């Protein structure tokens, strides 16, 4: 095989591998609901100092607006939010009492807005360096995620 052919084969292989990697990454990376994907569920974890709060985050919506809820594993509501994608505005509509202090709500609102950006760009982790809070959102499998009919 000539060196030219070897280079061509190597280039073709690289393209195939890159395509496969991208499609696998796309399948596994978190995503937000859109006009064809109505609902997405995430395993959520929030770490602050030595404390850790975990739960489930359900987000429903479309390309314009998302409505989400965080609950712990027992189903107790932690918070609900509405995110306007067109205006990039986050609103907390309900926060459980222990977290309903104005300074906590302000931090959560800002962090959730950033988390939407992170998930939209394919990431699953956000770190608030000012407050030292680490958030992880991992997509949950199968029937928890629904497509539109």
């Amino acid at each position, binding site marked *: 095989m000539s060196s030219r052919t070897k280079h061509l084969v190597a280039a073709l292989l690289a393209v195939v591998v890159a395509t496969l990697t991208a499609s696998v990454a796309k399948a596994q990376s978190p995503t937000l609901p859109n006009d064809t994907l109505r609902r997405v*569920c995430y395993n959520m974890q929030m770490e602050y100092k030595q404390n850790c709060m975990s739960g489930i985050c359900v987000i429903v919506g479309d390309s314009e607006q998302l*409505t989400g809820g965080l*609950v712990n*594993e027992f*189903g107790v509501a932690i918070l*609900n939010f509405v995110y306007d994608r067109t205006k990039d505005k986050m609103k907390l509509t309900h926060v459980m009492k*222990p977290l309903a202090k104005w300074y906590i709500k302000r931090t959560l609102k800002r962090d959730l807005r950033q988390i939407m950006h992170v998930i939209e760009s394919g990431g699953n982790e956000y770190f608030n360096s000012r407050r030292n809070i680490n958030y992880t959102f991992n997509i*949950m499998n199968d029937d*928890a995620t629904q497509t539109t009919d």
Partner: protein
Amino acid sequence: MRRLLGITLLVMLLPLSLCAQTSQQNILQKLNAAVAKISTLQCDFVQTKHMKMLNDDIVARGIMVYKASDKLRWEYTSPYTYTFILNGTKVYLSKAGRNNVVDIKKNKMFGEIAHIMMNSVVGNCLTDTKNYKVTVAETSTEWVATLVPKKSTLKQMFNKVVVHFSKSNSIIQKVEMHEKNGDNTVIQLKNIRLNKTVGANVFKN
């Protein structure tokens, strides 16, 4: 004349209200007697959380093991894995390889959640008049106990807890937890096995 009519009505209605109270007490006595006989309880459960604002449900499945009077293993198997073990005053939590231990004496809210879960799925909450106002209703197949929390820490979480007992065996079939924001969680117990031997390892981390 009106006065006489009023007194007559009062005299007629008084026995009715007394009857209703007696009937409630009888039902509660029956249920408490059945609950007192439970030394262990094992079952599968289906937990459906309805989120009012999203108009959407999260359904989770798992297994529960209870041993009188202070041991509970509550394990979610699908769609997430999460284990909650109450053993005396300690709560062991396990999720995705991460383990935590909480002392419920030091963490009041956690203690409240742990005891709500244990008492409501077994039925011990019926006698907890210090923390709940209990009323009982009857249908053709069920007794339905409604518990309204009295304590502020419980009130923060729930408006009311509704427990459904089967009339055929006086065992809990379903628990509904109604939250202030309009959400509710329904836990359906299935495949219930009573008073079988349960090893101590079940309640260890």
